[in-house]
């Protein structure tokens, strides 16, 4: 369970990114965080694992107060928080396997990471995760040889091999095409369900947020302006979050498209481990 209490962040430039945020994310809940650019979505999830240092307020993961940890304890706490990034943020010149294994860095010493001699258990788990996302055959490829969707899957593996209690997901679909975006969102959803993980997903796309989350939080200028179920996102609510726009038409139109596409897509990805399906996924992306 993640609990934010009065979390605020003001950057050195004077920009107030977050103002007094109070949120509780129970275990197993996938929470979408929506809002216009600059609303503070990225800052919020970075304040949780303290890649960005909050100015005020407290963050609890379970009973542990993250905001008062020293650097060593913070590193240990970060192992329990997997993060997935917007532009994948894979280390491009390392192999896929090294990228996945880098999720275990918090658990091994410097010498092990230098020689790449990770524990057998970790390597097996890395292979299992790569197989789960259909990329087992890519283990020895360099990360920059992969397509966008494949890279994001590796990013997901890197987060999951940490064996986290919480996933922090920053715009996972921002640089992917619509179809791949859905596959990735579905994958994240499935994996969260499998492991009972809590997740915060920053996302631009309101529709994806509605489809793949149990709860939506709307941010506007660093304030929570909506917190409720996905189907509570009425045009009025969207106007409050994003400002005036003809929301009715947008929602309707896109939702129609959805229905058609989802049917065929579910077949393609719901069991990505069957060999014949795997090839479909792979060809769809490359």
């Amino acid at each position, binding site marked *: 369970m993640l609990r934010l209490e009065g979390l605020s962040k003001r950057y050195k430039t004077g920009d107030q990114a977050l103002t007094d945020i109070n949120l509780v994310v129970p275990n197993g809940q996938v929470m979408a965080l929506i809002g216009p650019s600059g609303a503070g979505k990225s800052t919020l999830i970075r304040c949780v*694992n303290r*890649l960005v240092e909050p100015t005020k307020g407290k963050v609890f993961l379970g009973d542990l107060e993250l905001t008062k940890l020293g650097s060593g304890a913070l*590193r*240990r*706490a*970060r*192992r329990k*928080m*997997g*993060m997935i*990034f*917007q*532009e994948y*943020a*894979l*280390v*491009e*010149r*390392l192999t896929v396997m*090294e990228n996945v294994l*880098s*999720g*275990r*860095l*918090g*658990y091994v010493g*410097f010498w092990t*990471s*230098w020689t790449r001699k990770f524990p057998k258990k970790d390597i097996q788990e890395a292979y299992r995760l790569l197989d789960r996302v259909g990329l087992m055959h890519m283990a020895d490829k360099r990360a920059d040889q992969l397509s966008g969707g494949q890279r994001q899957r590796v*990013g997901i593996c*890197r987060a999951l091999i*940490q064996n986290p209690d919480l996933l*922090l997901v920053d715009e996972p679909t921002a640089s992917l095409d619509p179809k791949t975006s859905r596959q990735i969102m579905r994958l994240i959803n499935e994996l969260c369900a499998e492991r009972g993980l809590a997740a915060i997903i920053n996302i631009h796309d309101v529709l994806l947020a509605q489809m793949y989350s149990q709860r939506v939080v709307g941010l506007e200028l660093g304030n929570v302006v909506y917190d409720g179920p996905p189907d509570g996102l009425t045009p009025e609510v969207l106007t409050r979050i994003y400002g005036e726009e003809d929301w009715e038409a947008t929602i309707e139109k896109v939702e129609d498209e959805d229905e058609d596409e989802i049917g065929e897509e579910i077949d393609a990805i719901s069991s990505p481990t069957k060999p014949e399906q795997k090839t479909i996924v792979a060809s769809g992306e490359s």
Partner: protein
Amino acid sequence: MPLIETSDGPMWRRRATKKQLLIWLGWLVGIAIATYAWQLISEKTIWFFVEDAPRQAADIGTRMIPPKWSYMNELWRPVWDTLNIATLGTVIALIIAIPVAFAAAKNTTPHPLVRAVALFIIVSSRSVNSLVWGLILVLIVGPGVLAGTIAIGLRSIGFCAKLLYEGIEEIDHTQVEAIEATGASRAQQMLYGIVPQVLPTFAGVGVFRWDINIRESTILGLVGAGGIGLELNGSINTLAWTQVSMILLVILVTVIISEWVSARVRGAII
């Protein structure tokens, strides 16, 4: 681009009057400095020699042809020494330059004070030419290849470290952030997030500097620091012009080959 009102209506000029004046003033000062500098230099010149120079040049030119081909037998060893000075010097420089570069890069330096020291090391190493380093080292460790190697090494530290730390500062930070988010220590972040990104730069800089060092090590012998420059110095002092032309030819070929090798290797890396 102002318009200026005159009695014949508006006139176009390229620049405003004040700016134009400043530019003229700049030229005037520049010419004055150059003239003054020229006067000082010419005062210290014996013009008789200068007038005689074309005849001398023609004289030396004819004496240099044809090169003394048989002299090559005595040149293999100096060429080998020159190659070693350049290569070992580059290796030494890289070994020292890597920690200096990490200390000098804004995003990896442990402390601003350490950064200042690292930057000072870089500037001092770059400002002093390898021939001057050679001069110093011949005094300390005695004439020979060792002095040359250390001289090349000391001179190259600054060059390599400067290019390396600029490379380190230009890396993609989100990749490092991603490693940091897994709970990795600072050393591990460096190993997984930074080193893979800058490795190609390191290799490129090393080869690039090696190419330059081949050139520089050909002249180190002039101050006694080993290599083919020693033979050049000796031949010029004894006015053995056919040997001089042979040495110049060998230097030319060495430089061309090293340039070709370095271009090929850099092409393969990038």
